[in-house]
């Protein structure tokens, strides 16, 4: 469904991007730049969908963050909009009222949640409970595995 990408952006800064079609870094950068410009130029009350090259862009703004998906022509715009919302809900639930900083500092978690929710651009699991259960299980594994470390080591001074 989401055949191209899903990304999160803030004032032109990409916080998270996920590509579901193989493209070179150069192409990715170009597309990202183009998209950021296009979307930031849109006014608040405008429609959430727009045609872009041969794709459709579906985007939504949450506070300072824009979430944006590029989907193919025959894909359903409204359900894509709700994909975005469900993802935001997942982040919100996991971090507890998510803000941009959460995504910056825990970007890897944001990726893990995304992978549990969407895989290869298609919805894998739409139940909020099931997605969070999977992530929390992984966190548990993590805590068990981690041995306590000295503060110095943590800061990276060793």
């Amino acid at each position, binding site marked *: 469904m989401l055949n191209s990408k899903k990304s999160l952006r803030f004032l032109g800064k990409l916080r998270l991007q996920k590509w579901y079609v193989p493209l070179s870094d150069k192409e990715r950068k170009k597309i990202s730049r183009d998209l950021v410009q296009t979307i930031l130029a849109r006014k608040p009350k405008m429609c959430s969908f727009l045609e872009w090259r041969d794709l459709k862009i579906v985007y939504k703004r949450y506070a300072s963050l824009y979430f944006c998906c590029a989907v193919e022509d025959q894909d359903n715009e409204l359900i894509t909009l709700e994909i975005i919302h469900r993802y935001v809900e997942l982040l919100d639930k996991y971090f507890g009222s998510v803000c941009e900083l959460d995504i*910056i500092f825990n970007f890897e978690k944001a*990726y893990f949640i995304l992978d549990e929710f969407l*895989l290869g651009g298609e919805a894998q699991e739409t139940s909020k409970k099931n997605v969070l259960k999977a992530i929390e299980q992984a966190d548990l594994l993590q805590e068990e595995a981690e041995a306590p470390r000295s503060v110095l080591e943590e*800061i990276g001074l060793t």
Partner: protein
Amino acid sequence: MPAVSKGDGMRGLAVFISDIRNCKSKEAEIKRINKELANIRSKFKGDKALDGYSKKKYVCKLLFIFLLGHDIDFGHMEAVNLLSSNKYTEKQIGYLFISVLVNSNSELIRLINNAIKNDLSSRNPTFMCLALHCIANVGSREMAEAFASEIPRILVAGDTMDSVKQSAALCLLRLYKTSPDLVLMGEWTSRVVHLLNDQHMGVVTAAISLITCLSQKNPDEFKTCVSLAVSRLSRIVSSASTDLQDYTYYFVPAPWLSCKLLRLLQCYPPPEDGAVKGRLVECLETILNKAQEPPKSKKVQHSNAKNAILFEAISLIIHYDSEPNLLVRACNQLGQFLQHRETNLRYLALESMCTLASSEFSHEAVKTHIETVINALKTERDVSVRQRAADLLYAMCDRSNAKQIVAEMLSYLETADYSIREEMVLKVAILAEKYAVDYSWYVDTILNLIRIAGDYVSEEVWYRVIQIVINRDDVQGYAAKTVFEALQAPACHENMVKVGGYILGEFGNLIAELPFSGPVVTVLFCHLAPCSSTFSQRPRRLSKRCCAVTARSMSWLVHLQQTVHNSDQYYVQTSEVVSPVPQATVLEEMPPFPERESSILAKLKKKKGPGAVSVTELEDGKREGGELNGGGERGPETAAMASCVSQSTPSPSADLLGIRSVAPVGASLSSAGSLLVDVFSEAGPAAPSAAVNDDGFLRYKAVLWLSSCKVSAPPSEDPAPPLSEADELLDKFVCKNNGVLFENQLLQIGIKSEYRQNLGRMYLFYGNKTSVQFASFTTTVSCPGELQPQLNVQSKPVEPLVEGGAQIQQVLNIECITDFSEAPLLNIKFRYGGALQNLTLKLPVTINKFFQPTEMASQDFFQRWKQLSQPQQEAQKIFKASHGMDTEVIKAKLLGLGMALLDNVDPNPENYVCAGVIQTKGQQVGCLLRLEPNAQAQMYRLTLRCSKDLVSRRLCELLAQQF
């Protein structure tokens, strides 16, 4: 710092991120990053005993740096090491790094695959999921090769955990998209389809994406999914909003799954089974009914999810296009949305209605909303919504409302956004032409178009109006009068002047009774003088086009001038209004057009195939042209002018552009008026680079063409017949294996091939010569007719997108089953700027490619030669040398043919003798060749003897073209 830090916080990472955020300037940030990169590099290089945690932390930092937009060129090995860690958290970061950073063609893939293999067989579901996610994220061909056979097993195994199944399904989908040839469902098909019945909704949600994709490609194998999908949909639609627990989204039961089920059904025609169909219709009705119910929540998520299903259901109804009742209901529902306060819904309703407008059942129902749509066009604030409204007006237009719609679009054009003006202009032009009842309305409309949006009226549009006027004598007088009046306006757009010049030039005589108008003459002169003064110099391409215009209006002015001579009064007026220079120009005898003359001749020489203009035709044209211009009294100037206008070429204008765009635009366009053919040819082969840049014309034709088949069947995409020059191209490759097979303005196709025994491999390189992306790029290789059992050609599919300037490669595997005479066909289709390009070439696979050279002594040769003495085993041709008779060249060609060139065999040292065996799957065909040049007569005698008679004949034909 984040409010919540779950799991392990990597403090070193957090500190680094804070540092970056605190950087005041871009330079400071780069400095900090470089410092960190140096640190990580030294850690990775120096301390060999780096523990898992540190490795993870540094890899994570690298990832962060990469995500900031910096290039990362190391750390991949460390990430791969993390994959084999036993600790989940390290493994997870390793996989994340790989997924984000590793390009699908990296050399690391083999190492990664190893780690993935271990995790897949670990039976630990969390590890398995990580591995599957990684495959789905990278999805390279190497991965498909390694895992495509394993994953279906995991997907359908009874003991696989649900979460693993979900990942496996989507992982397989990704591999299928990358390498469909490697994912073979075969025995798994039925079990995969039955995943639609799985108890776990998440499994169904994931599996259905896979099933939909597979169904699109192999509808027959998967058709059992239809009834399963209908019953699943029916259960969801009729369930109460709480039945599905966490799969209910804002009171809407399983919206994602519902949409996907409806999408899957769109891969198939309506169910044949009455009961299944009844159930489905019931579902669709329920969905339409629910749209009328009061919302269960005020949240936008509720209405979005509900309407997502509704729009998908409407898509299915439109897809079936067989239930008038549902179609009309859908239309009414969309009609309500047209006035909804949500911009998104208005947008989607306009878009969806566009497709409804093309159904015969709902076309009328759509038309009832015309006022609302016109209003949307005028009042919507968002340009993308207005664009949809314009599209819908275009789609709902027919004879009954054309005048209203065209008028509205014209008035919208005055304030329309610049970004959509050009498209609007095209649409207006097309509608005006398509639904013109009286052509005076058409002429008025186009002139209005030029008046309102002259800058956006492309040449194609104004050429077209001239073309139509030429073809219809009932409108010529009106057109002449109208442009005459239009040109009296205080300011005229350049395009108006051009049209005016043309039409007056051609039909000015029809309005001779009108009072002489100074302003018209002035405007024509002022516009035309600059280019007419460069007539005798070497005009460039652009000014050449102006010349054509000038020539037309000149002829009118000359006509006028004759009238003027008859009346002193007018003459005086002319002298008054026309400034000295232009006046001189008009009264001057028109200089001949050396450039044009020669360009026609050059073209004549170039075109030797069928459809070329014969000299007599051209002369006929001249004579006609002369008459057209009102008699031959004017001597040289008439002749010159005539040659400029009357290159009557019967072929459709599309071919003149040198690009085989499929554009059956209707008879009128094909039988292009001589004038236009002439002008188009300027943009065509004579100036190929310009034609490529100038894709507006193609687009115009594409839109025209689309509009002509909009209501009827979808556009036919049958492969085009082979190019006329395909055989010539084929001949080029008889004695060589590499080179450029084909080239036009858009595309270049290069070939490399190698043959061994009866097998061959051919690499095709498709290069996009333009700066625009080719979409839906597909190639098909076929063996027509009797070639089918003789030759086996297998091709791997190519990427559907070819970026501007990019080149893609395709590999063909060729197997020669038995001897053959025909060549396989290569059909290439792609969309360039919206227009479908369709071209067919012959692939240079000829029987001689399967030659094995055979060395033999003179005695053996003649012994065998005698053995092959039956008349049908021999083929002989005597022909004139067409390439000179250089010994080395001939030798190279014979070697290229694939046979062994035998020395000291023929008693006459001038003669060439070759021997070889053609390897086919079934048998070997021995071949002997003798080529006797006669330098004096510049002739050759070529004799072939083969153990199979057809082979001699074919080889003889092929070779005779080579020398």
